[in-house]
Structure formats: structure tokens, C-alpha cells
């Protein structure tokens, strides 16, 4: 549930919002991530009017209203400003018509003013609201940036996720969040992970306790958010399990309807998990650059084996000829 109060508290300063009327309505819900200029609706055309949107009044709206007769102005405003309207913002710091102020006060609809130009305000509002409304979930795991690749390390508790992440941080990579990662879908196409404000940059290491990575290793070793590029699941090594030996088949996992490359990494004493995670991240980068080590190697082998078989066929044909010639002679 997103309230007008949330918009004001989180983005008020950025948008330069100044509350002028309707303070009592700060707990109104913003139900859709949309904002609009009510130009056409103000002229009286109300067909398909979206009543749940945040309304933005610009130069045109304010001047049009001032040109109207007072009673028409009130009537038009009353038609577009209903109980569903979450809030109204006036751009370019225009003085709101007194009828609008009175109506907002009466209906408890927050009325703001800002210095921003109308189009600037509109685009910022749409971007902000889309981001606030984008789906998000909390994932159990540790998010680390390794060579610029966002790696989400998952696995059962006590498998060594935090220890692996600590090893990576020690080698100069960056921690985003340990144990719990808030994943948000951005622009509908990629995922971004971040930590909760309270536990951000903290880790719990068994036998040591809670440590602050930013203080221990320096600000360079932490980040507040990072795109999620690959998911690695750490598993305790099982002898009867067959683990990927070639890497030709890519596995994927889905988070918030987005497919992410998925690796299962078996852990056992003697396997340097930190080095393996670095290798996975580097290999991912290489794949993004268009080079797939496994495919390249496989095609080399294929070329060689098919060349051999071709050579054998030619030799067989020559032998056959010799034989037949022998018969003729």
C-alpha cells in the first residue's frame, strides 16, 4: 500500500514538493503508478477519465481555469477531483486558484506546489511511481559483486555462503547484502538487489558474530545495490550426484519472471569456493562478450572428429579402387 505521505516523505525533497492544502488527506492511497495532466477532462470531456491518477496542473491547466467563469470553474474542478483522486501537484510554482484550494481542503486531497517545469515533473513522477510499484521479493542468500557481475549466492544454512562472501570481499569484491536480499524488478526487464537498511553491510559469521564489513574492509568493499546477473547455489558435495562437467547446457532459474543463469556449485574440503565463484563470474562476463568456452571447445573437438572420419572415408574409397583394379587386372 503506497500512501501520499510515503511519496512526500521519500521524494518530496527531490520533487521540491510544498504542501499548500489538504493536509488531512496525507494518508490517501496511491493505487496506480500513473500521473496525468487533466487538460481534456477540464474542458468537460469526461469519457474514459482515469480518476485514480495523480493530477498534475501545468501552465495550460492553470490559465484555462483562470479563463473560465467562477461557477464553471468550480463545476469542472468538482467533476475531475473526486474521492479517488490521490493528490494534485501544481508545476512551475503557480498559485492555485482559490476554488481548487477550497475543494482540496474540503475533500481532504493533498495539494502540492513545486518549482519544476510541468514536463519535467510529469516524467519524474511516472518514473518514481513505476519504481515504487515495481514488484519485489526478499530472497534468502548473499549478494556480492564479483568483477562487476552481481552474484547471488544461495544454499542451505551453514553451507558457507557468508564465508564465501567474506573471502570474496577480502579479495577486493563488494558485498551488497548478506543473508537476506531485497530483489526488485526494474523497468520490467532486470533485477536489482539491495540490503535492508538496518542489516546492510553486516554479516553474521559463525564463531565470530556480527561484523560490519564496511568498517572492517573499507567503504570500497561495499555497495548499496547491484543488478542480479547470476545465481549460484552452494551444495554439500554428494558422491552419487552428477555435477556439470562440461558446461554446454545452461541452467536457468526464475526470479520475478526473469530468467537468470543458475549454477550449482558443490562444496567440499579442498575446493576453493571463492576462486570457483570468481571463475563463474569471469566466465559469465566472457559469455556476455560473445565467447563461450564450453561451446568453443566442443566445436573444436567436433571439427577434429569429423575431419578424422572424413579422412577415413577417403582412405576406404582408395582401398576399394585398388582392390577392384586388382580384380580387373
Amino acid at each position, binding site marked *: 500500500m503506497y500512501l501520499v505521505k510515503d511519496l512526500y516523505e521519500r521524494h518530496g525533497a527531490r520533487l521540491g514538493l510544498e504542501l499548500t492544502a489538504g493536509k488531512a488527506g496525507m494518508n490517501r492511497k496511491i493505487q496506480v503508478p500513473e500521473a496525468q495532466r487533466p487538460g481534456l477532462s477540464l474542458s468537460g470531456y469526461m469519457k474514459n477519465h482515469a480518476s485514480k491518477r495523480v493530477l498534475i496542473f501545468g501552465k495550460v491547466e492553470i490559465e484555462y481555469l483562470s479563463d473560465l467563469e467562477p461557477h464553471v470553474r468550480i463545476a469542472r474542478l468538482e467533476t475531475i477531483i473526486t474521492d479517488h483522486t490521490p493528490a494534485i501537484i501544481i508545476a512551475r510554482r503557480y498559485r492555485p486558484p482559490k476554488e481548487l484550494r477550497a475543494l482540496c481542503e474540503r475533500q481532504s486531497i493533498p495539494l502540492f506546489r513545486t518549482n519544476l517545469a510541468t514536463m519535467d515533473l510529469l516524467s519524474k513522477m511516472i518514473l518514481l511511481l513505476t519504481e515504487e510499484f515495481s514488484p519485489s521479493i*526478499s530472497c*534468502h542468500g548473499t549478494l556480492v559483486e564479483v568483477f562487476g557481475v552481481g552474484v547471488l549466492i544461495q544454499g542451505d*544454512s551453514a553451507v558457507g555462503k557468508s564465508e564465501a562472501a567474506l573471502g570474496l570481499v577480502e579479495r577486493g569484491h563488494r558485498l551488497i547484502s*548478506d*543473508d*537476506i536480499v531485497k530483489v526488485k524488478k526494474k523497468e520490467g526487464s532486470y533485477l536489482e538487489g539491495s540490503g*535492508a537498511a*538496518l*542489516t546492510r553491510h*553486516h*554479516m*553474521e559469521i559463525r564463531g565470530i558474530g*556480527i561484523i560490519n564489513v564496511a568498517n572492517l574492509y573499507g567503504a570500497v568493499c561495499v555497495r548499496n545495490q547491484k543488478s542480479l546477473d547470476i545465481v549460484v547455489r552452494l551444495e554439500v558435495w554428494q558422491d552419487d550426484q552428477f555435477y556439470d562437467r562440461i558446461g554446454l547446457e545452461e541452467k536457468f532459474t526464475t526470479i520475478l519472471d526473469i530468467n537468470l543463469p543458475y549454477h550449482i556449485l558443490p562444496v567440499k574440503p579442498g575446493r576453493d569456493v571463492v576462486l570457483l565463484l570468481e571463475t563463474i563470474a569471469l566466465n559469465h562476463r566472457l559469455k556476455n562478450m560473445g565467447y563461450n568456452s564450453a561451446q568453443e571447445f566442443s566445436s573444436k573437438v567436433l571439427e577434429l572428429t569429423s575431419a578424422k572420419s572424413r579422412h577415413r572415408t577417403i582412405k576406404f574409397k582408395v582401398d576399394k579402387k585398388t582392390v577392384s583394379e586388382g580384380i580387373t587386372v
Partner: protein
Amino acid sequence: MKIVRKVQVKNAMGLHTRPATTIVKLLQNCPCDVTFTHKQDTVNAKSILSLLMLAATKNSKITIVVEGDEADVTMNKLVQAFENQFGE
């Protein structure tokens, strides 16, 4: 087996580090999956940092979900711990 129950934090200082440690200790060898939901956040109850992230104050309501073998035993232990205010 899956059991869902709602409990209230009775400690004056809320769900701080000591109660969180008690919960994690209690669940250490538990075979079930246990999650706590507070407001809109659902977290793994076997992780201290996740529990602390909830920042649950006194009188906060927490929904506990226990899933797996012996879920009823685990749930009873948890509810009792909340009732006892984690021995504080």
C-alpha cells in the same frame, strides 16, 4: 506438515539481538523450514540478521510458518519462547 500461527512480541525492547539469538538457537537442529512475517517482510527464522531486519517492536504481530517434520513440536517451542518473553 505446515502450521501457521500468529504471535505477539511481549518484550519491552522488542525482537532485539538476544531474543533473536534464542530463536536461532532453538531452531538450530530443527528439520523444518521456519519463516517469520512481520508487516510485508517474510524472512528465514534461522538467520539472526534476517530476524533483526524485521525490527519488530513491542506488541508487533508476527506470523510464524513452520513446514516439515515435527512442525507441531517446533511451533510449540517457538510460541512458548514468545510467551516467556525469551527468558527476559
